[in-house]
């Protein structure tokens, strides 16, 4: 199983999108990215962040929202 496969198995993409969805509703784009990144950093284990980054790096992050993508890249 590749890192990207594992990321699919652990469902980190929809989780990140849900978080981004909340912060998008709170303010502008920059604040939403910051809020999403802060939340993921505060509540996700590092392995989950690595899995999402692996998906992005592998070009397999279809469906990942722009805000969530920017947020996870900020946490690299």
């Amino acid at each position, binding site marked *: 199983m590749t890192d990207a496969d*594992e990321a699919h198995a*652990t469902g980190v993409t929809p*989780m990140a999108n*849900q978080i981004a969805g909340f912060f998008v509703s709170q303010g502008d784009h920059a604040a939403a990215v910051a809020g999403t990144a802060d939340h993921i950093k505060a*509540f*996700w*284990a590092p392995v989950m962040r690595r899995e999402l980054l692996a998906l992005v790096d592998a070009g397999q992050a279809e469906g990942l929202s722009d805000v969530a993508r920017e947020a996870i890249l900020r946490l690299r």
Partner: protein
Amino acid sequence: MSLIQETDFGAPAVRSEKTVTLTIDGVQVTVPEGTSLMRAAKELGTTIPKLCATDSVAAFGSCRLCLVEIEGRAGTPASCTTPVAEGMVVSTQTPKLAKLRRGVMELYISDHPLDCLTCAANGDCELQDMAGAVGLREVRYGYDGANHLTAAKDASNPYFTYDASKCIVCSRCVRACEEVQGTFALTIAGRGFGSRVSPGQSESFMTSECVSCGACVQACPTATLTETRVIEIGQPEHSAVTTCAYCGVGCAFKAEMRGEELVRMVPWKAGKANRGHSCVKGRFAWGYATHRERVTEPMIRASIHDPWKVVSWDEAIAHTASEFKRIQGQYGRDSVGGITSSRCTNEETYLVQKLVRTAFGNHNVDTCARVCHSPTGYGLKTTFGASAGTQDFDSVEETDVMVVIGANPTDAHPVFASRMKKRLRQGARLIVIDPRRIDLVRSARVQADHHLALRPGTNVAVLTAMAHVIVTEGLADEAYVRERCDLQAYAHWAEFVSLPQHGPEATEAVTGVPAAELRAAARLYATGGNGSIYYGLGVTEHSQGSTTVMAIANLAMVTGNIGRPGVGVNPLRGQNNVQGACDMGSFPHEFSGYRHVSDDETRQLFEEAWGVALGDEPGLRIPNMLDEAVAGHFKGLYVQGEDILQSDPNTRHVAAGLAAMECVVVQDLFLNETANYAHVFLPGSTFLEKDGTFTNAERRIQRVRKVMRPRNGYADWEVTQMLSNALGYPMAYDHPSQIMDEIARLTPSFAGVSFEKLDALGSIQWPCNAAAPEGTPVMHIDHFVRGKGQFILTEYVPTEEKVGPRYPLLLTTGRILSQYNVGAQTRRTENSRWHAEDVLEIHPHDAEERGVRDGDWVRLKSRSGETALRAEITDRVAPGVVYTTFHHPLTQANVITTDHSDWATNCPEYKVTAVQVSRGNGPAEWQVEYTAQARKSRRIEAAE
């Protein structure tokens, strides 16, 4: 140790700022205005004979024993119903009174069995006591007249017996059922000599509306209503005060014992959570502690397909430590984790998270609050600054409007529900927001002003619409907001909720709640006086659970309903120690007292105290652990006192995660469903077998006291300590009080807590520190813990779980009064007589469309799985909604529930699952297979 005797003042205490001074038997006493003479006398230590009076119910004045003489007044009034007056001079013992009392007692005894020596209440009978107190020496009427001595017994209830021959018709049981419990199941049938206590309309107790709370048994002054256990084995000889191990109300009980044998649990009047009341679970359903299925010896096995092998404690602990070391050596430090228990004590949960953080060396620790109230922690910390409810339970006595959202207190928090109903009968108003017509909507002498029967999953839309009404109709408490809240955030929020799309007319199509009804409810909450919000898992267990909690907080702030008695935001916690488990650092991102692991100062404090280096990033939550197990990274799990296979969502996924691990350790009383996937079983101890503390839904820390030795040999904290030592991290506590001392040293909100102080005060609500040395009943009084209250925008986002042609109905789940969570305890008691299996509630319209009749087997299918259970046709649920409980492993309702979860906390979305229902003919194939697998998994190798 002796039996704890509580003083019965004969009449309830009266709250009044005015006092009255009078003289009783030559002694002056000053009491609040409105106090009865009987109570005033008892305050002096003078006992006036009585039978129909007791301090849990209002005075009735029927037995005529408590007569007194008052200077300047004619006659001999009943002291229980006569209020004190300034300057009154009262005599409680005179020759005239003695003669009258003896005459009354003669009449009682002439129609009472004279079997004191063989009576179950011998030594605990007020009638017997009164005969002695009045000096009864003869009964002039004889015993041959008309009497009730051959009246039949009603032994239908498994926990108590009604012996009508011993009834003196004092009505204490009837009044307790009405005033204390609020069920109104009992009445006095007949007139005059024919008067008898009757459950319902001449029904048996078991078939009547009686909820077996025990209030009538507690109130009975004779052996008429007696615990069956007392009838069987006799009166207790010593007792200790302890705390119930069922729901988050945290009732205090006297555990009344004979040696190490528990005779009965009697609610303790001084208990500040329950005020002397109880429910069928805490009062009676403790038989599981000695159930034959309890496992008391450790067991191990190499594979989950093998039978269990009984081993010594030394071997079990050594094997477990060896396996965890092997796994961490092979797969890395983060490949293992632990789950703390909301059923265990604070000291035990603290120790498990400490073991994970020190002996395992990671933050992979979580607790069952993940799947229930984790959104409460997130939502209330974000808005108010503290992850807990704002009030004490007493606060309900000063509320004017209650909003109950996504909670069913009469079933899940019954003792507090009785206090709510009492306040409602006094005139408080009620708004219920729930897809089901819960009992509070309409029951005996309780009627909700508004029932907003919303579609499951639309909480945020409804609450935001209420905020819209409050702001746009000018009902906001602007002075409060200006003083207490962040004004910039408020302005932003007020603008947001005022948008037309948030108005109730716009949201009606989504929520199903008529706009006019919602507007009326919002106006009532905003303008009806002290407004309080009580909520449960119907709020948190959604994809927008945290958003809903914040929407609730917004409503409370905008109406000024935070920071004084009678108001507040009150999460009704499910398990006995959910609050405590959260407080104790059971979450993977924070230490005890809700301090994030990334906070350098806090981390350094723990590193110095524990002598290890600690990571600054969070560990895995329960769903993440299971995901990582399926993905092949997570290999070892220590589960104390939880049954995640039955309680967590998407059972197949949980099973796949557990099956992918190499060492699952279950520490529990029974071989629960999770144990089917375990490699090590460490027997647990019950709350009767250990010392410690529980923290209830109102942040109240209460003592749990050991009344018998652990049948398994060790309290749970001792087992964790042995495991930690075997893993190489030394722990050397001699008593749980030492663990609490460590918690207090490291946790600012617990700084003033100790067993010594708990013993002195009875209980303490945190924060307890230098500023609040005896605790904090109501939080956020002058300012919010975070400083200014924070309004948060609450955009409604529909759940991903959609109904459609294949799955046209919405399933929501909950609890029933007689059973508790996964049922591991209550299923092993007589409570199963009330609820032997989970059933599916379905509306008549939906049932008819599917050809389903009441009692039919039906198949319940979702995108996650399929199960079968029997149908109960009822209009308690709306068309399009079905409901079931999750108490029985045969049904396993969580085979149906999905992986959807709260955006902030991963709390599962139990309350919304799209399903289809069709007629069935018995258990589903999966259930048959699972039952066979479970039976196979529970095999124990024969001893050599």
